[in-house]
């Protein structure tokens, strides 16, 4: 039975071209790209071809500004810890936002225990940062600003260009976690003005476990991984060539189709938002109406809890994601949703829906029908709905 995947942000299917390229690479038995002999050269060529392809996807000025690694989390860790270490003489203050991914938050926490200081700016009720607040937070000790491009829980997109204008003026390095954006919306690092940008292949239909960090030439940053001189001495370790080849192919194909696929996802998103009130009531949409990823909707269904919804939809072969405390394994509601001003109760009932190019309008309708039944069933069990329906 085919599963309707409305949790594409967690995993997207590989493009057929990606599969073909990776199988071909497996069969070619590539050697180590760092080896100086003939066998190494072929591998190095494949590596650089992928690099060029990824660089084009984000409009990097030079391919070598793209540093390959194991994915978004490593990119974020590298950006934050690498800049912190390299610029410690200049200062130890970092500015971030309340809604960052755990990779950012925990990397910063790690630095805090080493004496670094943070200022975290808040967001409005749709999760958007005010660039002026970032400007106000920057001091003479600030060495880094890290604000995500799009949020993985709400899909809301930040005013990155405005923030970059501020960081350039104040001569502070600007990193953005763009893991859910690259390949989903057009990303142009020249236009954006960022110094560092994290991305992961799976967002653009490449393999999981591989990604990269864009490092603008001239940025003061230490490597995260020390060892050999791979990746221009920026990231030690023999490269995951198979994954990178997959990523390079994914980047090339996605670049050709990005606008078309984004438009398709947007139509599904609009269909969902338009038809939702015909199926359920008492819900909140957390995603920004204008500035958000075309393929994401975060909705908080009131009076019920997210994991139960997810399990019941799973029974119907529909995959969704939830941000309830129980489901995410933490003991508390999502920090992102609370920063938006949601009550804890409402935050617990949050579903995150994310689409890809292969989802269809029929699937959205199937989901809505199933959701209606699930919500009705769970509200019948819920004391909170009981209280509300009694008035």
């Amino acid at each position, binding site marked *: 039975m085919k599963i309707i995947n409305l949790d594409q942000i967690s995993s997207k299917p590989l493009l057929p071209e990606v599969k073909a390229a990776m199988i071909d690479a497996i069969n070619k038995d590539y050697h180590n790209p760092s080896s100086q002999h003939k066998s190494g050269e072929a591998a190095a060529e494949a590596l650089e071809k992928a690099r060029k392809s990824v660089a084009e996807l984000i409009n990097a000025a030079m391919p070598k500004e793209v540093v390959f690694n194991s994915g978004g989390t490593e990119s974020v860790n590298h950006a934050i810890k690498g800049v912190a270490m390299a610029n410690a003489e200049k200062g130890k203050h970092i500015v971030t936002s309340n809604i960052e991914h755990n990779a950012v938050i925990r990397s910063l926490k790690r630095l805090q225990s080493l004496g670094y200081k943070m200022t975290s700016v808040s967001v409005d009720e749709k999760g958007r940062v005010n660039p002026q607040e970032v400007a106000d937070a920057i001091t003479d000790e600030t060495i880094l600003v890290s604000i995500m491009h799009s949020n993985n829980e709400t899909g809301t997109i930040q005013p990155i260009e405005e923030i970059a204008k501020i960081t350039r003026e104040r001569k502070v390095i600007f990193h953005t976690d763009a893991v859910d954006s690259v390949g989903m919306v057009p990303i142009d690092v020249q236009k954006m003005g960022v110094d560092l940008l994290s991305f992961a292949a799976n967002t653009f239909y490449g393999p999981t476990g591989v990604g990269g960090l864009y490092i603008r030439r001239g940025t003061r940053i230490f490597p995260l991984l020390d060892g050999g001189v791979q990746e221009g001495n920026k990231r030690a370790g023999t490269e995951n060539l198979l994954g990178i080849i997959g990523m390079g192919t994914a980047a090339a194909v996605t670049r050709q189709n990005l606008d078309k696929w984004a438009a398709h996802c947007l139509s599904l998103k609009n269909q969902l938002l338009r038809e939702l009130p015909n199926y359920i009531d008492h819900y909140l949409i957390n995603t920004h109406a204008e500035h958000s990823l075309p393929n994401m909707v975060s909705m908080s269904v009131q009076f019920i*809890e*997210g994991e139960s919804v997810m*399990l019941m939809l799973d029974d119907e072969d529909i995959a969704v994601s939830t941000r309830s405390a129980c*489901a995410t394994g*933490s*003991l508390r509601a999502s*920090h992102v949703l609370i920063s938006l001003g949601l009550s804890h109760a409402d935050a617990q009932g949050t579903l995150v829906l994310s689409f890809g190019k292969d989802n269809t309008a029929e699937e959205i309708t199937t989901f809505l029908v199933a959701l209606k039944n699930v919500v009705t069933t769970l509200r019948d069990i819920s*004391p*909170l709905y*009981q209280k509300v329906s009694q008035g």
Partner: protein
Amino acid sequence: MYNKVVMDHFRNPRNVGVIEQANGIGEVGNPLCGDMMTIYLKITDEKIEDIKFQTFGCGSAIAVSSMLTEIAKGKTVAEAKKITNKDVAKALEGLPKNKLHCSNLGADALHLAIQDYEDRKSGKKRPEEVRAEKHEHVHGESCYCPYCDIEIKEGSTFCEACHSSLEEEH
């Protein structure tokens, strides 16, 4: 994630609803941690003639409520007082370690409902609203780190094993 017994009680929960003429009501939990449960009792001749529940919570919470009511129905008040959270978890043939805290609500709510029944019986002044107890871990029960699943001391704010903070972050 969950075994067959748990999934059965989740998909087909027993004894859902309210009892209009309940003579014992207990409400525990709070939306802060994502679980809330209300137990309604109809006690006749010191026996639980009828029991119903309502729950706001995850798969574990709903399964626990359902199993609890199944265990408690028909028992005498004295017997029901002895039912523990461990009994419920055992009847469900186990819950994932980091979900055991969800199971804490079950017996707590039952005991609160029994307390309510006894308060009413003895003519003790009942507050206007149903008494809602802040959700707390049962004394002496093990807690597990939600990140690395290792056993930790109840009420810990830091996990030594994986160096995770268990406090509020913002």
